[in-house]
């Protein structure tokens, strides 16, 4: 069947906002997300009353705060004109999924100015993502009684199989991790990682969390929020920033709700999402100048490189280990330091960085050539992709 993508270049990002990421921001989550949203509206040269679409992935009420959803945001930000809203779980990727849905809503005419935002809020009274109940129901009944209820644990056993099949050297992943921290040191927003370079020795000696993943392979849970404004190319002409066009979006999911029970641990939801992304985007892989790739766990980089076709199956470790992803390599990656260093905003931080680079506003991090980029979110059980150009 012919590839059909009527939404190609029919929407664009025209404003970004970012609260910065903190271990403890010291303010309610609602405050952070309001700051990011108002910053994005202002960055575009718009007023809250111009926003007629809002998309977010609700952040559950934690520590006594209310659930941050569209309704909450409409009230708090004072958005009188909203006629299209979605509280979603699109692609299950809370951050980038919202931008994908904003592109869909704008390109189809459901709204003209869409606000897509993501809040992450770290609970302060318990471990992030820890198992809280000792009554394991549904699929969890087959996992939690074995001390296997925490996401990094499950992903570690996944990645162990990849390491087994393709013979990954730890230095290969370390090359990305060390570089991503170096990139983060140029990030002018508050980041969660310590502002301190790490060496390969630091990486190789980092404390194991669950074999074969160590502490430096994992991103930081954080308090933070980011937002983008998506509108039509026509509307963008009268706005403050250069538009960044959305060529294609895609989502993917795997064969079973819990990835532990998938039949092949070397293929992620990323592979389904990426299936025909370049044809849909109308942009060739070779014309991508840089990428913002989801790195909630560092090994995701390997899977994404194979899913997107930048490396053949099983060859991503060699590709990444060669230094290809450095800012002066053939495929500069995660120039803001990625989620591994900036903080866990579920690829909305990635989107903000891609936009700034494509607009030439990335300051000390600015690439010489930034015409087209790919942004990815999630990747394991659910995934989202967006191809952007200036």
């Amino acid at each position, binding site marked *: 069947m012919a590839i059909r993508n009527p939404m190609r270049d029919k929407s664009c990002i025209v404003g970004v906002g970012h609260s910065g990421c903190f271990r403890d921001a010291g303010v309610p989550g609602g405050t952070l997300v309001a700051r990011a949203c108002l910053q994005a509206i202002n960055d575009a040269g718009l007023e809250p009353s111009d926003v007629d679409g809002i998309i977010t992935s609700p952040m559950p009420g934690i520590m006594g705060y209310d659930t941050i959803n569209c309704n909450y945001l409409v009230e708090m930000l004072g958005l009188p004109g909203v006629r299209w809203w979605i509280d979603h779980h699109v692609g299950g990727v809370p951050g980038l999924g919202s931008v994908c849905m904003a592109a869909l809503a704008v390109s189809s005419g459901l709204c003209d100015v869409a606000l897509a935002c993501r809040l992450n809020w770290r609970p302060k009274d318990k*471990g992030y*993502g*820890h*198992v*809280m*109940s*000792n*009554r*394991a*129901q*549904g*699929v*969890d*009944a*087959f*996992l*939690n*009684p*074995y*001390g*296997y*209820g*925490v996401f*990094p*644990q499950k992903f*570690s*056993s*996944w990645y*162990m*199989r990849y390491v*087994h099949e393709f013979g990954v050297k730890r230095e290969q992943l370390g090359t990305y991790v060390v570089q991503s921290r170096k990139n983060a040191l140029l990030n002018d927003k508050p980041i969660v990682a310590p502002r301190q370079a790490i060496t390969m020795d630091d990486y190789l000696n980092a*404390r*194991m*969390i*669950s*074999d*074969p993943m160590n502490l430096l392979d994992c991103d930081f849970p954080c308090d933070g929020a980011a937002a983008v404004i998506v509108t039509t190319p026509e509307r963008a002409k009268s706005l403050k920033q250069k538009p960044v066009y959305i060529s294609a979006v895609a989502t993917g999911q795997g064969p079973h709700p*819990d990835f*532990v*029970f*998938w*039949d*092949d*641990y070397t293929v992620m939801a990323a592979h389904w999402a990426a299936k025909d992304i370049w044809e849909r985007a109308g942009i060739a892989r070779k014309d991508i100048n840089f990428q913002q790739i989801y790195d909630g766990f560092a090994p995701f980089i390997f899977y994404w490189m194979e899913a997107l076709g930048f490396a053949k199956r099983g060859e991503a470790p060699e590709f990444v280990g060669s230094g290809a992803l450095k800012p002066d390599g053939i495929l500069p990656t995660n120039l803001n330091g990625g989620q591994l260093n900036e903080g866990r905003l579920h690829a909305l931080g990635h989107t903000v960085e891609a936009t700034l680079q494509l607009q030439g506003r990335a300051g000390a991090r600015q690439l010489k050539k930034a015409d087209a980029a790919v942004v990815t979110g999630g990747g394991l059980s659910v995934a989202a992709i967006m191809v952007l150009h200036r």
Partner: protein
Amino acid sequence: MADYKKAIPVPNDLTKDYWEGAKQHRLVLKRCADCGRYSHPPLPTCPRCQSEKMVATPVSGKGTLYSYSVMRNAGNPGFESEIPYAVAIVELTEQKALFTVSNLRDCPLDQIKIGMPLEVVFEDVTPEVTLPQFRPARKG
């Protein structure tokens, strides 16, 4: 059991055969009566042929280690004192990619090898609950 701090499986309509079987020290999975495909965790409809005839069926309890991880961090109630401990993804012999999860018994952490043959053992953790576990397969 007030002193058992780890998570306890709560059976439901789909999983009660599995947990009842475990109590009797048998590994019992759902299998499609029409096409013969096993589904674990249990589904009400066969994902291969969409038949609704899913029948509780005892399996051999033999398998191989598909993957694993050694857990060195907290996060699961009751496991704090067991760190480091291994979790195994066991591929059962009955069907390709028929996976079940357990801890690894009678196997030092440095002797775990992907592909090693495993067999089920049963642990009565409370008077009501038995957990299937796996250990390296013994000869014979």
